[in-house]
């Protein structure tokens, strides 16, 4: 994998995202409060374009009727079937049994306790060099 400069940091202010092309791969780069993350734009479920989805918070619940809402803007929902992906890790919040999706071990920056399954949006390491966003893909 090589590092590709995809944008200057000014082009992706906090809370926004940008669709970039890296070697023919569509990758969406998110800025969450100054941290950058990159996901394969193609939803592993049925191919929807993640950059066209909305960013929303995480809702969890241990008890019916309770809605624990946290991490605003850190989940991206596929614009088609609504699958939720943690932007920081690429992991989806649903754990179905089947399907062919590639897993990439990613260090989880914000610990979570929920069961997470094999469905991940492919992630790419991102770093900032001299005000430029660099994606390794």
């Amino acid at each position, binding site marked *: 994998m090589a590092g590709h400069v995809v944008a200057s940091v000014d082009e992706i202010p906090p809370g926004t995202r940008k669709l970039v092309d890296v070697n023919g791969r569509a990758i969406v780069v998110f800025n969450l409060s100054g941290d950058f993350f990159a996901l394969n734009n193609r939803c592993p*479920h049925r191919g929807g374009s993640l950059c066209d989805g909305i960013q*929303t918070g995480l*809702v*969890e*619940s*241990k*008890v*019916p*009727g*309770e*809605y*624990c809402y946290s991490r605003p803007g850190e989940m991206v929902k596929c614009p088609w*079937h*609504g*699958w*939720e992906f943690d932007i920081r890790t690429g992991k989806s*919040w*649903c*754990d*179905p*049994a089947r399907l062919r999706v590639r897993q990439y071990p990613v260090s989880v920056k914000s610990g979570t306790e*929920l*069961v997470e399954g094999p469905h991940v949006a492919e992630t790419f390491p991102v770093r900032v060099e001299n005000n430029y966003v660099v994606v390794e893909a």
Partner: protein
Amino acid sequence: MTTAAIDCDVHPQVPNLKALAPYLEPYWRDSFTERGIPGFESNSYPPNVPLSVRADFKGKDHPATDVTRLSAQVFDRLKAETAICNCLYGVELIFSEDMALAVARAVNDWIAKEWLDRDPRLRASIVVPTQNVEFAVSEIERCAQDKRFVQVVLLAMQESPLGRRHWWPIFAAAERHGLPIGIHPGSTYRHSLTSLGWPTFYLEDYVAYAQAFQSQLTSLISEGAFAKFPGLKVVLIESGVTWLPGFLWRISKFWRGVRAEVPWVDRSPAEIVRDHVRLTITPFDAPDDADTIRRIIDQLRSDELLLYASDFPHWQFDGESAMPPGLPEGLARKILVENPLATYPRLKEAVS
């Protein structure tokens, strides 16, 4: 047929209102007579409909209104060793809550005295007045003292879907006592039998119960009943079974897309069902060929889901065995014995 088979669905039938008289308080007993109330039999199984009583189970008298007659068929002829009684008298159809409670108590006492006392191989489900959840809970608390009551039975069509929170005290009580909730065909007739109105034919009425089971399971899962009551087991009795795989594929698919609406559903509905839900095998809605049945069993993806039942005296099979053809030996034994034992903890307890 393996010995020690546990028949999870037989139907003692209240012969008439007079039979309940010893178990009713005087006010109710007398008012029923004075008002000319004929009884509370449900129209879900009209007596002469072929499904209601298999012809060769019938003798001179109804095969299920007396313990001796029922036991002779269920134990001697059909070779079970234990049987769970689900009495379908129309307690839940009654509109007056107080009347419903009185009749529920009478039915449960009648079962205890005239069935469980007379044949130690019998166990029973507690019949409850679902019209009033507090009354239902009080009846569960009362009857749970008798360890021969192993389940709470509810009719499949109520006024509101069974997952709704206002039902939860019933689940709490059942979970507390280690009693599964059994859901059985029958309606409280608070709504038409389909969501598009009243069918023309009894055959449609009966087929519609498969849809009711699907909707009840949808409700229980979506409302988080199993999240709230992790010890709760639900048994779908006489449901038909084969609708289950396609249903799970559908609801699981939607869950993945709209999870945020019901965030307490923390894993796939298919997994929740495999953990918490069991189904009796009669009727098994499938063609009689072993290959198709094996494929359906495979689609269920669990050896622990199915419970043996004859559904006596309903006409769901011919001959002496309700088991579908072609089941592997190990699975047959699980269905007949191990799964029922695992589902109904009280079956393992000795009763005095």
